[in-house]
């Protein structure tokens, strides 16, 4: 039963990883740029939600306003910082995204300080029980919200005209231009959507684990997720996010205590530290060795 409990909690956290990772994949698909600032957007979104709730907004309204603000931030950073770099090599643009991450961290440090902040309660206390498995409302809400957002986003990408333009841009920019698609606007849209996804993901994570500058490190968890998912596959990112969430929860709840028990019996070592934080990278290494193109990725197709 306990393992089921862990899996359910892991799925909740994993679904949040999924929406954060979706944004990275979205941008990568249409511009070839890996956005190292994604964790920064997640952190900023969480701070926005924090600031809005402490200013007295009800949590639902705070989440929505923060989501919209993050859209604006995403669009602005793309237009002001990255669009002028149109002719720069992709690597230079990626370095610029690192710069964005540093700037976001500096801004948040300046305004909210370096300490862990008690994140306001977005969801009521209490828990539900299904077949012996308990889940706090926090986890239920995080899971439902990210699941709905994931679903909505994938449907948008697959079935709407704007989604089709996104897919065209991702597939072949030369062809997209020739049929009259404004490719650079599509990239702006991708950044906007990505920042919104990250912002909501950040708020949800903060509601589970509290808020500090350290939240921006979530970007580092998102990278194993997208590599695992195959870099260009949106469903792949979702599945990989869920896998990682579950693995972390199981490591934290079962594996770490088991290892520590053994160690304590035979050695002087009492703790193996936060093993669950190592798991994403261990998994990353294994996947890269066995299946370099990721679980859902196809072999790198020709790029023009």
């Amino acid at each position, binding site marked *: 039963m306990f393992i089921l409990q862990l899996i359910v909690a892991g799925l909740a956290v994993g679904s949040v990883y999924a929406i954060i990772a979706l944004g990275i994949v979205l941008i990568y698909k249409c511009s070839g740029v890996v956005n190292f600032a994604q964790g920064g957007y997640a952190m900023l979104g969480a701070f926005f939600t924090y600031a809005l709730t402490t200013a007295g907004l009800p949590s639902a309204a705070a989440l929505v306003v923060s989501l919209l603000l993050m859209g604006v931030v995403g669009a602005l950073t793309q237009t002001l910082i990255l669009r002028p770099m149109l002719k720069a090599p992709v690597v230079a643009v990626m370095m610029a995204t690192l710069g964005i991450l540093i700037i976001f961290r500096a801004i948040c440090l300046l305004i909210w300080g370096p300490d862990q902040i008690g994140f306001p309660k977005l969801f009521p206390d209490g828990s539900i029980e299904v077949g012996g498995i308990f889940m706090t409302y926090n986890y239920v809400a995080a899971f439902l919200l990210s699941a709905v957002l994931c679903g909505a986003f994938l449907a948008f990408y697959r079935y709407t005209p704007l989604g*089709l333009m996104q897919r065209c841009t991702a*597939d*072949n*920019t*030369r062809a997209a231009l*020739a*049929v009259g*698609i*404004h490719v650079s606007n599509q990239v702006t849209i991708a950044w906007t959507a990505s920042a919104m996804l990250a912002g909501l993901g950040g708020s949800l994570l903060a509601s589970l684990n509290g808020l500090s500058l350290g939240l921006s490190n979530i970007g580092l968890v998102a990278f194993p997720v997208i590599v695992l998912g195959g870099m260009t596959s949106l469903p792949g990112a979702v599945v990989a996010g869920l896998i990682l969430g579950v693995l972390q929860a199981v490591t934290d709840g079962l594996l770490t205590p088991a290892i520590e028990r053994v160690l304590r019996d035979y050695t002087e070592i009492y703790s193996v530290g936060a093993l669950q934080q190592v798991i994403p990278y261990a998994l990353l290494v294994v996947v890269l060795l066995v299946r370099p193109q990721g679980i859902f990725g196809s072999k790198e197709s020709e790029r023009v």
Partner: protein
Amino acid sequence: MLEVRGLSVRYDSVIAALEGIDFAASEGRIVALLGPNGAGKSTLLKAVAGMLPFEQGEISAGRVEFGGVSLKGKHPAAITRAGIALVQDGRQCFRNLTVGENLRAASFRHAEGSAERLELVLSYFPILGEFYERPAGFLSGGQLQMLVIGMALMLQPRLLLLDEPSLGLSPVMVQSVFAIVERLHEELGMSVIVAEQTVPRLMEIADDVYVLSRGQVALHAPPQAISEDDLQRLYLS
């Protein structure tokens, strides 16, 4: 309808690909644009379609006008809306998307009447209807060529630019591509500029021929006035 005067194009601010080109295509004509590898055919078509800025190219001198309106500095989206569609070399389409999605993507610029145009395209290229739900990446070279021409038709152009449509196709396929070009011209009154290296069949349907060589117009004459020898000489020079 298309007027190019003194056009010079450079890539990466140094490589001169075109030098002082004069070129014109009048309403309802088929113009053949010939020349050996690297002569500048694709560059000229890209300059007209506004694609140069996306390939580190720029117009360094000269004018490009369509119906009296300058096209210089315009985004490809604006140029398609003005009535020019470019079918690029290499059969550029969206290979991970279905044939249907490819055609739909090409109809965003002119949403009204797109249902009728789709019907028209499918009547010209029944094979596209058959493979409508299949990813474009599964099509053969000839079928891809039909798809990209079909996509250009969805843009409702008055002037169609075709860059080496016959490259890599079987002789039978080449014949049918040019048959299509002729039908588009006759049935829809479309003006067409076709860039090719050598194609006798193109000489039969063209009204006017330009031969480019090293970024300059080496010859401009009606097709009857051009002999096989002339072409040989220009291509070898």
